């Protein structure tokens, strides 16, 4: 019974931390660019404001436009129930593995793209087309990263992967794991719409992909979508953190280990957020037709990960 409670707390914790994580990245980028930047909890304020605002829906839109925010949000929350953020042997672990996680996120993107098309504006169409292209090209890289992890762990089940890496610390430093980490990191940038692929901070139609799809949303719908995007970022960070550097993830469900797990989680988030912030200040956005080259780099990393784990088996 305690496991189920922990599962739910883990999900609520993820939801609560997500906007903060985005705020943290923005704050760090501001500091790096010698700006004071908005405080870390700024996203929370934005969400609260949006939930109070009235929703304006385009006359062209159909029920798909209205249903999309709820679908995106609930699929992302479902993923937080599956991913090992704090502890490992959780009851919902049997419900879905890494493949289910990837495809649930694809479900969210699918409906978001449809909503973008539904309003009939060129921005929505452009955003949907580019988002689906990037999502499609990212798929092989994720698949290979999963294959590499599954090879060393013997299963695609998240819990088993974390447990196996904890049991055999040597595999964490094996070239397979490192290359898979690299591949998954590039994919994270692509999936969550971070800089080299998509610029989260702009509304310029040339550079925005994720923003273009949600241009028409307002009020509580926009809040839900922003929150879901933030949670998606958190999910990818926790995947990067816990699957590849699993130390700190609670194995026994005692208050002490859970506390350690929370602190190690926060530490990993800060490190990852820092790297992303530095990365986003250093490099400029890639032209859309250069993005496949970046994704083929990550595909190559994945392939090397798999071959190396094959040869070393």
């Amino acid at each position, binding site marked *: 019974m305690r496991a189920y409670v922990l599962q739910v707390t883990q999900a609520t914790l993820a939801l609560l931390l997500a906007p903060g994580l985005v705020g943290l990245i923005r704050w760090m980028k501001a500091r790096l660019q010698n700006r004071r930047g908005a405080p870390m909890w700024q996203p929370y304020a934005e969400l609260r404001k949006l*939930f109070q*605002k*009235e*929703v*304006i*829906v*385009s006359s*062209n839109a*159909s*029920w*798909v436009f209205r249903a999309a925010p*709820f*679908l995106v*949000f*609930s699929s992302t*929350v*479902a993923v937080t129930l599956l991913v090992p953020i704090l502890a490992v042997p959780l009851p919902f672990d049997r*419900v*879905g*593995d890494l*493949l*289910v996680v990837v*495809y*649930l996120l*694809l*479900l969210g*993107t699918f409906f978001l*793209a*449809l909503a973008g*098309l*539904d*309003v*009939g*504006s*060129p*921005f929505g*169409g452009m955003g*949907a*087309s580019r988002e689906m*292209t990037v*999502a*499609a*090209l*990212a798929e*092989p890289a994720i*698949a*290979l990263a999963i*294959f590499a992890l*599954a*090879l060393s762990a*013997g299963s*695609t*089940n998240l819990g088993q992967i974390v447990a196996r890496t904890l049991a055999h610390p040597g595999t964490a430093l094996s070239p397979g794991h490192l290359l898979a980490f690299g591949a998954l990191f590039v994919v994270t940038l692509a999936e969550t719409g971070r800089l080299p692929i998509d610029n989260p901070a702009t509304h310029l139609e040339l550079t925005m992909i994720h923003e273009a799809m949600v*241009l028409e949303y307002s009020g*509580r719908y926009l*809040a839900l979508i922003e929150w879901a995007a933030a949670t998606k970022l958190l999910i990818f960070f926790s995947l990067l953190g816990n699957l590849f550097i699993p130390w700190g993830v609670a194995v026994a469900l005692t208050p002490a280990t859970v506390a350690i797990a929370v602190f190690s989680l926060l530490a990993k988030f800060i490190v990852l957020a820092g790297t992303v912030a530095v990365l986003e200040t250093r490099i400029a956005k890639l032209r859309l037709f250069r993005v496949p080259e970046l994704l083929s780099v990550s595909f190559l990393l994945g*392939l090397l990960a798999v*071959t190396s784990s*094959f*040869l070393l088996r």
Partner: protein
Amino acid sequence: MTPEHLLLAVVFSYGTGALAAIVVGGAVGRGLVAGCALLAALSGVMLGVICLGAEHAPTVSAPFLPLTSFSLRIDGLSAFFLILIGIVGAAVSVYGFGYSAAYEGRYSLRLLGAMLNILLLSLSVQVMADNALTFLVAWEAMSLSAYLMVLTEHDRPGTLRAAHWYIAITHASFAALVGMFLLLSAGDLTTSFSAMRSALLTPGVRNAAFVLALLGFGAKAGIVPLHVWLPMAHPVAPSHVSALMSGVVIKMGIYGLVRVTIDLLVGGPSWWGGLVLGIGTVSALLGVLYALMEHDLKRLLAFHSVENIGIIFIGLGAGLLFQSYGLMTLATLSVVGGLYHTLNHACFKGLLFLGAGSVLHATGTRNMEELGGLVKRMPRTAFFFLVGACAISALPPLNGFASEWLVFQALLGGSAIPQAEVALIMPIAVAMLALTSGLAAACFVKAFGITFLAIPRTPVAERAHESPVSMQAGMLTLAVACVALGLAPFVIVPLLESSLAGLNGFTATTVVFTPALPLQVPGTFGQMSAPLLAVGLAVLLTLVPLALRILGADQRLRVGDTWGCGRIGQTPRMQYTATAFAEPLRRIFAELYRPTRDLSIDFHPASKYFVQSIEYRSEIHPWFERVLYGGLVLVIRTTARWVRRLQGGSLHLYLLYMALAFLVLLTVARWWR
């Protein structure tokens, strides 16, 4: 109800359906056709369900065919395919009742109705055939009835050419099958399957038989080099026929391949599995890539059939590969994954074609660039099409995801293969499969988005109306089937598994099913519970709006204009089109597509700087179609032109041929011995 009674019921009601179609015309005729077909399809499903688990496979034989005799045997594999035919057949016949009403005056409804019943009958007989002659007769009857139905709208441009390509490639595959079966029967005159199973064949003959089977069944299934007829024939056929063809008829290629390679040839060397896996991967990728570029709704769906057949071939290929290495658990898993995807594809592809059919029925056009905004005018068809689109893009709660997940697990199991260089195929196949499913999702966002959402682009789309009830009923059955199959893999997989148990080498209990809901694949990799996932999503979908209401989020909602950078009017031309949607991918995969571009600008007579009109045309012709088929046709036509010159008209030439033949044979006879 013993199997024999059910079998009689199936054959009898299809027969009466065909007869009724010819005898009775008009609405009553259509009603009878649909009724009989529905009754027969349902009894087919019951027959399948009964025989799926049965220990002994019931056999029926009748002294019909002259040379060998007409014998049927319903083992597990046939039972599974009977169910598949029944489900899609039922939906299509109900849908057909409403859809063919539009053909009343223009085309011969009698032929269409009769051929529909004969097609379904030959499909059912085909999967139960127990000797080569029955199989071949049913195969050709199936191809012929499908061909005649493709020809219903014969006055439209392109129908004759498409039908000709269809029957040409189908007959070539038929010739390959005749050769294969005779190679397999190796002298046994009854050509019965049981004799083939025990026949001792040299490896050379087995390989030849396998290659012929791959060619014959592959051409019918529509794998890449032989798929050319599929995007031509399916769009021109009436929609319920293309649903049946895409859903069931191309699956006969899958059934045949499984029956021959796994049952009759009892597995083979590992290059068999490798070849099938390779072909599957290439078909999946090329299928979806060419589907992306289509803006004819039914051609897009036809290319997707090629993609999904590729995925099924990946499952079968992995199964064969594992069988050759003796890893029976993985072999069963992958073949079960392939067959499960066959059933799923039959359902959601059938649903999508029926949806496209009602769009065609309502607007009269298949071109996505002329549609749009249909979700408000045809809400139920739109919903069904959306269910189909989510299923084919393998989104979690639906059936596409369940079978694709199984195929992924099978491929991930590839690491168990001892030889490293062979095991390396698996990750590449995984990557290609993932890319395919990603592109499929993109393609169906385009298909659903451009066709159904936003503003209607032409007055025709403006005046669209919801399709009649019978068509919706057809779509509803298949949609329910998709959702049910998606939610209950833990029921479907053991049934599939027992259908394979009959084939030697496949043990019965490899995929363990704990009473708990999750689908477990012990000893290998994954665990997933589709029902729990669906329940979770449903709970969240109700909880979130409730929470918003309770926590006092603002509930007001106002309808306004779409943001157009300050412009006042919102014209349909400002929307994204299908070609525009696919433009990024066309540019990325330009080397494959090699799009031809021609731009014609006629300038204003006054000066070079003013333009009267610009016409931009860009076409994509699959290059291998030009190379492979263009080459073949060229070779045949040049030989034909050369042979034609023999009959040149001059009597002296004719006499010269005769004299030369005479002299040559005289020398041969004189110095023969």
